[in-house]
């Protein structure tokens, strides 16, 4: 682990009431980087959104809103990049099958992963050691 690397490992109950807490942790982490790069307002909003979207995807879709399950999130930020991993125990989905939202805006659902992809540089979803992992990377400039 590098001199300026921050790693967080978080487990919260599978409940949407914790979305705000996790989103705000992302926001606060981005602001910690302020001295390094400055102007982290946009990054703070993006991490808040990405964590909220990834976590609600795990809570509502992978874990069927079961309040007794747990969502596991890991965050790693170094000088040059950040990585967010959200682990779930659901059936999994095909990330490649997730397209862009329609232009008419008539769909109520289906924008979460599109938003994550817009805000992060690399997004993968894979099976690992009994869990599905949504892994999201972003270069810090």
């Amino acid at each position: 682990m590098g001199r300026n690397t921050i790693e967080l490992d978080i487990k919260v109950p599978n409940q949407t009431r914790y979305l705000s807490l996790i989103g705000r942790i992302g926001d606060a982490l981005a602001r910690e980087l302020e001295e390094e790069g400055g102007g982290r307002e946009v990054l703070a909003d993006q991490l808040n959104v990405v964590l909220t979207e990834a976590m609600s995807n795990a809570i509502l879709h992978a874990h069927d809103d079961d309040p007794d399950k747990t969502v596991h999130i890991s965050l790693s930020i170094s000088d040059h990049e950040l990585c967010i991993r959200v682990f779930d125990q659901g059936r999994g989905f095909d990330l490649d099958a997730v397209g862009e939202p329609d232009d008419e805006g008539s769909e109520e659902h289906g924008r979460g992963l599109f938003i994550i992809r817009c805000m992060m540089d690399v997004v993968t979803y894979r099976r690992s050691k009994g869990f599905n992992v949504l892994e999201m990377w972003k270069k810090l400039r």
Partner: protein
Amino acid sequence: MEIAVTENSGVTILTPMNERLDAHNSDTMKGAMKESFEAGAKNVLVDLSHVRFIDSSGLGALVSGFKNSVSHRGRLTLSGLQEQVRSMFELTRLHRVFEIHEGLQDALASFSEGDVHG
């Protein structure tokens, strides 16, 4: 989530009071718009001035309200979008779908410009 409901010159104003409109409380927002249109409201304004953060579920709730407005031959407008909220509308291109006004007074004025439904 607390949603303030007020009336002004034939316009039902719904004001979500939370800073976040996300998957935790978006159903409440969705329900409030649905109830307004089902109760006979034709002109509904959602004042988002207290909302600093919205996610895809919050956007989805507003899309649901927009669909309710169409099916009830009413009108739904939005006002008071803060920076993060506006950028999420632009990212998902929903700013092209909704009628969006800068402030509450602009939105109310748009209803009184001779095109109030009902």
